[in-house]
């Protein structure tokens, strides 16, 4: 691999998040470097998705600081994340089931569209030219993910593995610099997982996209990640390259539940 891992682009310092009296995250710090694949793992309820939602601006931590490209980030809303070129997929697929694959992926381009509502509705002026350009971009994504054959199929009719791929497609259509993947391989069979792994690696390699992913499948995580952070009960218990994490006693304990 010739890919170059760059500087820290996202730095989370001493993040704590509470919902009323429930502590979801406690004093967590880690960073994400440019072009790397960063995995967040941990048992159920460890706070992985909360962590992703903090990065994405859905949740706002009570304590801690977040630095994005070196600047401290103030309170942020999800649509601002999108404008900062952070895209994501969801644990339970969040696509428009009645719309075609093409249209779903097209929605990933919305933040890039400049024409106003009237222009779009009447398909005149900027809207026309713009749509053609966006369509081209979307077709590149379709080609990249090898889903040409379902371009016009309503998403609701597709098998689960393909829906996951379409969701990745929508995220990619936004041309993100950082991609957040919430359990991209949950519920997939071995072949679908292999495909998804290949796409994640290709995205990272060809577009240089930084990827933060949550995943349960340890084999997958250890194979494709550059660095892994391990959470348990809202606390960070491990952080490092896969081999380090694999041999970390706390991590082994958390996963095997031994020695309590």
């Amino acid at each position: 691999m010739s890919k170059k891992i760059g500087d820290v682009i996202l730095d989370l310092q001493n993040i704590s998040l509470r919902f009323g009296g429930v502590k979801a995250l406690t004093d967590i710090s880690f960073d994400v470097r440019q072009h790397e694949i960063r995995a967040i793992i941990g048992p159920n309820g460890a706070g992985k998705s909360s962590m992703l939602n903090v990065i994405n601006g859905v949740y706002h931590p009570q304590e801690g600081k977040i630095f994005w490209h070196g600047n401290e980030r103030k309170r942020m809303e999800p649509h601002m994340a999108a404008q900062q070129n952070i895209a994501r997929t969801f644990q339970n697929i969040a696509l428009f089931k009645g719309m075609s694959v093409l249209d779903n992926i097209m929605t990933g381009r919305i933040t890039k569209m400049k024409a106003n509502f009237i222009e779009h509705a009447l398909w005149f002026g900027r809207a026309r030219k713009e749509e053609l350009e966006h369509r081209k971009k979307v077709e590149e994504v379709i080609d990249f993910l090898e889903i040409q054959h379902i371009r016009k199929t309503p998403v609701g009719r597709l098998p689960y593995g393909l829906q996951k791929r379409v969701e990745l497609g929508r995220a990619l259509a936004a041309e993100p610099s950082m991609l957040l993947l919430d359990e991209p391989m949950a519920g997939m069979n071995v072949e679908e997982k292999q495909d998804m792994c290949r796409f994640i690696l290709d995205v990272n390699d060809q577009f240089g996209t930084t990827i933060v992913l949550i995943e349960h499948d340890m084999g997958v995580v250890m194979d494709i990640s550059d660095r892994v952070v391990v959470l348990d009960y809202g606390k960070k218990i491990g952080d490092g390259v896969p081999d380090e994490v694999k041999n970390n006693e706390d991590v082994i304990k958390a996963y095997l539940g031994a020695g309590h």
Partner: protein
Amino acid sequence: MPTQANYAAVDGLHTFPRLLFHHARVRPNAPAMREKYLGIWQTWTWADVADRVRALACGLASLGFKRGDNLAIIGDNRPHLYMMMSAAQCLGGVPVPLYQDAVANEMLFVLQDAGIRFVVVEDQEQVDKMLEVSDQVGTLEHIIYDDPRGMRHYNQPFLHDIHELMEMGRIHDRNHSDFLTAEVEQGHYDDVSVMLYTSGTTGKPKGVCQTHAAFIAAAQGGVQVDKLGADGDILSYLPMAWVGDHLFSYAQALVAGFTINCPESGETVMSDLREIGPTCYFAPPRVFESLLTSVMIRMEDAGKIKQKMFHHFMAVAKRCGADILDGKSVGLGDRVQYWLGNLLIYGPLRNVLGMSRIKVAYTAGAAIGPELFRFYRSMGINLKQFYGQTETCAYVCLQPDGQIKFDSVGQPAPGVEIKIADNGEVLVKGPMLLKEYYKRPDATAESINADGYFMTGDAGFLDEDGHLKIIDRAKDVGKLSNGAMFAPNYIENKLKFFQHIKEVVCFGHDRDMVTAFVNIDVGAVGNWAERRGISYAGYTDLASKPQVLELIRECVEQINADLVHDSMVADSQIHRFLVLHKELDPDDDELTRTRKVRRNFVAEKYKVLIDALYEGKANQYIETEVKFEDGRRGKVAADLKIVDAKTFPIVKKAA
């Protein structure tokens, strides 16, 4: 061969590169190739194609590709791969397309046999295969790839992006502007234009060397019979290594000057078909079958009125559609009904199937059921069969318009001579015959007899209208004791087209009459029995029901009535048959894993039944050991009733 020259020397255009540059001159702006890329059909005109071929050929030359070299081509149908074929031919080289889904080790033999130095592949997947075997091939020097995706980290110096090759070629062309024209001028119609490897079900694959003249003759014949013009469109989706694709998508396209269309991917063929609406289409029978099934299933979900309309007009089409297509006389009432049906049903249906513009559709490769064949023809789709081998450029017999018989492969194509050998084997001669098997003079000598006829290995006969009927592989054909020909497969296939019959084994070699074992199709017959309130306990029970025997007898007699019209096979009417008490099964070694009957094994295992058939007994008790899927063994026993079927007197035609 003088016959070849006669066919090929039209206007001096007797090689494919000359044809290509001819089209680029005559119709530079007409579309030559289309490919769907990023959701949009991209078009290359003849001028574009000629320009690229020129660049590619010069690029190959600057890499050291020489006259007589072989160029392996591996990948899905892509415009650039077709262009590479022409590029190799420009330099007097020979393209060797390989089946793209083969694993690396299967490709190894061909790569070694053809002494491949240059290979052009579609994508990373194929590059990986080449890298895997390159040490074993030994001769491999350069790998050119079309799709750069995933190739970023490959930096071996012998790997070339096809665009890089084109760039090299353009520079070469600027520096030696006369080079390519001179190379093309050197090309001769008797040069080998392509090498297609036979699949090699028996022994090692053999490289069939076909000349420019042979393929041009084959293409011209086909274009002439089916009147294919330069305004046509064809969907090129079958493997490039298959002789049919080479004939339709390469040879005919260059001869007639029509457009080839490459689908986006293997999975999008059906929707691409609808978008392109080709004028000429080829598919094996199972594709036509699955298309029909999908139509029928969707029809069942349609509303009452639509269903009624559909069934009414399909009945009209069944009655007179095929005759109208064949230009036979049909009553006014039916004509009006058919016209209405065309407006309401057939036209829209053809549109859904992507066949609105079809002038001719072909099928080959396996026997097609008469019902299926008639369905498409009655809807106004000019579906035809053809017959040919790799060794004959897939060009021996064609079905001329207006003379379509579903059980024949048609009349000898223009320029082709057919002779039936004494053992029933079909022998052919003509301009389309192979030059030789590559480096295999022994095999070449074996396949072509002293009179210059190619021995097809198929047994067949010409009927009274001169249509060829293929009945069997020649080695399976036997003789009845009265000397008449006995072709078991032919009869069995006829019977298997009935939905109630799953498998048939016929006997008759050295016997005085033909008899048969029948396996019923438990799904279809079970369904049939249910509707009639016949209760049954399982296959054995169902197979012994008198009503079922009666049903099968009707099928057999229908076939007998059919056979009597062909003097060659009239003696092969089935006199007696029985329905077996168990299904023939690969687990019991009665079928091969590809579900072909192991004839001799069955004959030996059920000898007692065969004896009973020929001794005139009315029934026979049998007990057979069977293996169940879980490995246990059991016994099936039954007292089988032997049924006599009505046969028909043979009417000898006054000669």
